[in-house]
């Protein structure tokens, strides 16, 4: 894209989503989790990757909804989909190698890109219990390349995850291959501070880019191992105007990118607000799919 016009204003979440959107290529088949990951993938699909297909864990492939997805097994995922499959069949297709790229979040990550979405501080009795694998382990095991979106915090970026839910490069080197895993492993981690990638030989994470206004030193302070980084760390590109406009249309009521969820929680006004969202989304989002 030549002569890029950048958005004048954007939130940190929008910067993360726009940066993640750039990780997807046209004609790819992608496995994506709900929430900000889906906003990122849809933004890619509706800008530079019009022939990309998005599948969600609930079993739907190629949904083109005119409303925001709220759950991996929401009724929305079926809307104008190419196909709805039994879940084992969809995950089986992924194991077979039909999926180029996957995007998921995590509660904790280590320097080899292994993810923890199960438990912090002990197992099975945990200090903090989180969701569990879901499809995370399956996607991390066999997808072509894995993208990860998460919050940058010292206790989340650790030397070794408390519980290894989803395999990254395991102990580094060729340990992933030796374990019998078929997918390519993690390719990028995007946080609220920057972009990380992985060494092709050792499998160790390094800092690739910082978001505008963030220094590599600040990133190091929010991470608990000695981080490798190239001599020069680049800066993340801001969202383009087109990307920002698409994101606002995908989530016009700020359910993920703003305070829409809080408004829905209101015992008096919440339901009317929700009905208003479903009333108005159709005409707002319909033009996106032309």
């Amino acid at each position, binding site marked *: 894209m030549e002569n890029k016009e950048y958005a004048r204003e954007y939130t940190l979440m929008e910067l993360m989503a726009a940066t993640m959107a750039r990780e997807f290529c046209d004609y790819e088949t992608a496995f994506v989790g*709900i929430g900000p990951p889906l906003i990122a993938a849809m933004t890619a699909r509706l800008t530079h990757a019009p022939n990309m297909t998005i599948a969600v*864990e*609930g*079993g*739907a492939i190629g949904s083109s909804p005119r*409303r925001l997805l*709220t*759950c991996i*097994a*929401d*009724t929305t*995922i*079926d*809307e*104008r989909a190419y196909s709805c499959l*039994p*879940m*084992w069949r969809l*995950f*089986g297709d992924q*194991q077979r190698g039909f999926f180029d790229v996957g995007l998921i979040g995590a509660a904790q990550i280590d320097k080899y890109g292994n993810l923890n*979405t*199960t438990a912090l501080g002990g*197992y*099975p*009795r*945990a200090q*903090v*219990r989180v*969701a*569990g*694998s*879901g*499809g*995370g*382990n*399956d996607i991390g*095991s*066999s997808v072509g390349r894995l993208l990860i979106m998460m919050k940058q915090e010292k206790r989340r970026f650790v030397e070794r995850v408390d519980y*290894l*839910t*989803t*395999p990254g490069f*395991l102990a580094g080197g060729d340990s*992933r291959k030796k*374990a*019998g*895993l078929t997918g390519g492993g993690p390719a990028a981690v995007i946080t609220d501070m920057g972009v990380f990638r992985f060494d092709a030989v050792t499998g160790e994470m390094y800092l690739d880019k910082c978001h505008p206004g963030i220094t590599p030193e600040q990133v190091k302070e929010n991470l608990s191992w000695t981080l490798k980084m190239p001599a020069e760390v680049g800066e993340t590109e801001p969202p383009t105007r087109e990307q920002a406009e698409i994101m606002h249309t995908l989530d016009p009521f700020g*359910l993920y990118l703003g305070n829409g*969820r809080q408004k*829905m*929680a209101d*015992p008096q006004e*919440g*339901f009317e*607000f*929700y*009905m208003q969202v*479903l*009333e108005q989304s159709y005409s707002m989002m319909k033009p996106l799919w032309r």
Partner: protein
Amino acid sequence: MIPRYLSVHDSILIGLGQVEKFEIAYNWGGIWGSDAVYRRALEKGIPRPIEIEEYSNLSVGMRFLAASLGVSFMPVKSLLGSDIPRYNSRIKIVDDPYTGEPVALVPAAQPDVAFIHVQRCDEMGNAQILGHLGDDDSLARAARHVVITTEEIVPTEEIRRLPNLTCIPYYCVDAVVKVPFASHGRGCSYYYAMDVPFGIQVGNAWATEDGFKRWAEEWIFGVEDWEGYCRKVGWERLLRLAQAEQRYQKFGEVR
């Protein structure tokens, strides 16, 4: 209890102390927020300690598929190298006898009884699911007994019009019960949208143990039957959720 993932219905049983052990892939809170009942059970053993046996989504599906085929396990290329088999001795990592590569074996799951909610079913038990179907086709064949709850009971002639939609044939089914709006809270494709504000409020109510007890008193023990529940939610609200869903997708129509 062997749900693929734990959602509000399963957490209610946990909160009421009715669950000893569950075998799952994950607990979903999603837009409803973190499920405090599940967290209290696993972090603090409230209301009772619970045993947990964890898998991934593919492996849960393969466990039902194995039982549906009458075999005792299925192989998967997931789980390898992770902590999931380390803490779950029922998963076996073996060398594939044909390739020599590592492969994970997951045991068949055969529930005593499965409750499956569908959009349309006839009186014989031929059940049709519209939209995503989880692994319900395998589950219906894996369980010893199957109870179908359905939005609508339709004539067999209607089922015969689109037989490909019948993912559960009558011979798997023990009983059919008409329960409209049975998925309220969550949605039902082509029938009604998810009630997101209701879900967020449920999540907030469950934040404390006392809050959960009060919620159960009000929403479970405080209503006499399903109709009572629907009246409490409000028929108008339910119909508006149906209208909202059908603005986007309605069976047999392009929207």
